[in-house]
């Protein structure tokens, strides 16, 4: 069809926002089975599929003393065989159900995540249950996966963003499990199948687990299906991860990781901060969003849009279960390393010393609440939000009240958070790049400790 003639000429006035439409919370069902398995289900009929995650509240940190990355390797190999199915059958069964499945572990959790067509939900749940309860850890699959891991670790050691995170986390957390993000080759080679089985036996327990599912189903009917599949799982829970003491960060420190031939420098700056359960969490989130957490933030405007130093400046508040950290970073051309650090610190200190204006505050609050709504509009997004709230045992109404709590924050809240957590005097600075190109610039901010890409002090 053809449209009628246009009604008006160029409009130079920015249209006002229409009234906000309320977020509609989809029906949810919650239940804890008698074996301890916690379940959260939500309807979402956007596509005829469902997505789910079976979490265990134990990850690499729980066994860091044995070897870093052991939980991740356990999850990887758990996918390769059960008492009923060989690796090839698992993969072909998944395809037959139109499903995708991934396993892995971070510092605090291990997870089996899956998505598939609703017509095959029972078959997929049955397979997930087998992987969670009856993984067989075949020796040949373990050997194959370990070799793949080792080759992956070698490539990581040539990747600037990995090297920066690795050194930064070590600087913040030292020998605490959070201080190590990846095993060395030697540590990976020392893994043995028995260690994986031990981890699996100890932590893949219903009392340590949370099943979150979002999708095109009726929650009550799905709950019945889940109980049939998971109800017979023998109960059991698990010990929380140890939380050894953290290193004292008394002063600003500079670390340089030498990656020969780099044509760019990867910079990370930050401090330890807080977890999501801390009363300051939203204050810090808002301060971060104004500083460098959004496109329209001070750091992005400064070092990208005004100065053109970088493509991808960003800051973030990163919550782990026991602790958290704040970081700001950018990949910049070699000759502006010192200039970039100057701006990163200038903007941090400005947040600490000067209250944000009303307009900037309004904009940032609107941004956080809006992005929160966007995050609830897809099955994946909704599952992620619910998983976080439940895993961290946040208050029951955490999601429902999130937006109003953000809207109540003030300029003083932001400044207070910046003063506490943007601790420039004790900031840890990591720069990854070609030493000859950047060391003299790094040295303007402190005497650099220099490492090679293997993590050795040089």
């Amino acid at each position, binding site marked *: 069809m053809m449209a009628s003639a*246009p009604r008006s000429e160029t409009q130079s006035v920015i249209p006002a926002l229409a009234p906000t439409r309320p977020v509609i919370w989809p029906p949810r069902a919650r239940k804890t089975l008698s074996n301890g398995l916690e379940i959260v289900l939500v309807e979402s009929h956007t596509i005829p599929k469902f997505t789910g995650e079976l979490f265990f509240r134990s990850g690499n940190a729980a066994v860091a003393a044995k070897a870093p990355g052991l939980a991740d390797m356990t999850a990887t190999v758990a996918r390769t065989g059960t008492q009923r199915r060989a690796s090839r059958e698992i993969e072909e069964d998944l395809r037959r159900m139109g499903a995708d499945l991934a396993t892995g572990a971070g510092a605090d959790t291990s997870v089996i995540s899956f998505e598939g067509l609703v017509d095959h939900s029972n078959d997929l749940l049955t397979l997930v249950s087998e992987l969670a309860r009856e993984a067989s850890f075949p020796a040949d699959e373990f050997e194959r996966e370990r070799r793949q891991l080792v080759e992956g670790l070698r490539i990581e050691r040539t990747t600037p963003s990995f090297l920066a995170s690795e050194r930064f986390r070590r600087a913040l957390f030292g020998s605490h499990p959070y201080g190590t993000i990846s095993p060395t080759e030697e540590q990976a080679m020392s893994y043995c199948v028995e260690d994986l089985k031990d981890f699996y036996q100890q932590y893949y327990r219903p009392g340590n687990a949370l099943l979150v599912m979002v999708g095109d189903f009726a929650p009550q009917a799905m709950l019945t299906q889940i109980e049939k599949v998971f109800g017979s799982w023998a109960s059991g829970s698990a010990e929380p991860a140890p939380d050894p003491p953290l290193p004292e960060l008394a002063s600003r420190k500079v670390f340089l990781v030498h990656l020969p031939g780099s044509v760019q420098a990867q910079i990370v700056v930050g401090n330890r901060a807080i977890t999501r359960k801390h009363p300051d969490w939203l204050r810090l989130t808002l301060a971060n969003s104004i500083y460098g957490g959004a496109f329209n933030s001070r750091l992005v405007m400064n070092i990208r849009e005004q100065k053109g130093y970088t493509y991808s400046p960003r800051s973030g508040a990163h919550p782990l279960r026991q602790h958290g950290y704040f970081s700001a970073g950018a990949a910049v051309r070699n000759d502006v390393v010192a200039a970039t650090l100057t701006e990163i610190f200038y903007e941090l200190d400005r947040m600490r010393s000067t209250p944000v204006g009303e307009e900037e505050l309004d904009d940032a609050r609107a941004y956080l609440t809006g992005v929160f*709504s*966007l995050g609830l*509009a897809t099955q994946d997004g909704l599952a992620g939000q619910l998983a976080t709230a439940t895993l961290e045992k946040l208050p029951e109404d955490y999601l429902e009240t999130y937006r109003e709590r953000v809207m109540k924050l003030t300029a003083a809240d932001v400044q207070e958070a910046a003063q506490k957590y943007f601790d420039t005097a004790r900031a840890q600075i990591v720069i990854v790049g070609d030493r000859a190109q950047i060391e003299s610039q790094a040295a303007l901010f402190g005497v650099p400790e220099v490492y090679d890409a293997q993590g050795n002090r040089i």
Partner: protein
Amino acid sequence: MTRLNIPVESQVLPNGLRVVVSPDHAAPVATVGVYYNIGFRIEPRGRSGFAHLFEHMMFQGSANAGKMVHIKLINSSGGVLNGSTHYDVTNYYESVPSNALERVLWLEADRMRALKVDDENLRNQRDVVKEEVRVNVLNQPYGGFPWLDLPPIAYRNWSNAHNFYGDFDDLDAATLEDVQKFFKTYYAPSNAVLLMLGDVDTDEAMQLAERHFGSIPSGPAPSPANIDEPPQIEERRGVVEEKFGTLPAVAVGYQAPQRLTPEWHAAAMLDQALHGGRAGRVYRRLVLEQQIAVDTEGGIHYPVGDLFDYNGPTLMVTRIMHKPEYSVDQTLAAYDQIIDEMKEKGITAEELEPIKVKFRSNYFSMLEGGHGASIPRYGLMHLLACFSLFDSEPSLVNTILDPFMDVSSEAVQSVAQKILTRQNRSIVVRQPVKKGAA
């Protein structure tokens, strides 16, 4: 089988702008996109990387919204925005709480009407783009492999073969005059489609489109570019040095059949059979069984696009990272066995059936996602845009699955025999400078 019934309303404004609306009120958010029928494939010669650099310039200011106003207005409305440059389209998109719909349209209309940028903006974004190329390609293990490596080997027409991210000399040579000329040539309403998805009322959305875009003067349609390739008559090979990574890697690309043809439907099933995750034949054989490779991936128009978002020559690509103890020739010999088997024995109905189930399932996921959880319905928007610009038929989103579901195993074998030939392929090897063991 669930029949797709996605609401799709469309119209064409008198100035030639296509408008597509797809309402869904499940969440109070809207996604808006403007797609222009211009990608990096047909950017001007001597200006490699220009289409992408230009995309950056579209965020630098328009007649009534100066530098940073676009970004500030979207973020402060609670939304996110971005743009991206593809082979044959360039897109600009926003996801916002739905009360900001009109504001988004105003901004997009303002920059479709008149770009207002200066030399300082151009210098700034040229620097930003160079850091983008460094962080994604020049300072990254396997950066640009194989999406920047294969085209110069596989193609003879400069449009298909050049460096899409841009040689730095070419980026430096770009002028403000180039920017305005490019805008005039390719950014007219008749070369674009506006899409509104999510919590929008169809009538209201159509009226708002007319109000804000209707008075933008129509421009002449750009003259069609020649992107034809001469027929390939021999296998083509090249080697690229891998500066950082420790594993040898090889990519193979076969010229793929033309879109929306029966051969293309069959090739999509062939692609799933070969590259469909860990059950796909290539991964199963090379990684899981023979353990020559540590990873393989692949697809049609892989890795910077998908089956639906190109409109010209493309490749079906296999990417293999293999163990250093195997030579490239040994790796390729094992790969060729898989290919030869497919040509000789084809695929059984028992293998094809689950492949179709998986294809359908992937398609549903594509509708909703495609960009993590941050841009709801990005995938649906992308499909609607491509079907509008390439085929003038956005409602293809509801029917495009059917012919794939009707592909026979004979058709899969026959297309395998036709396209999986030595003379129809190009191979690039990434040769690490460093040894594997540190």
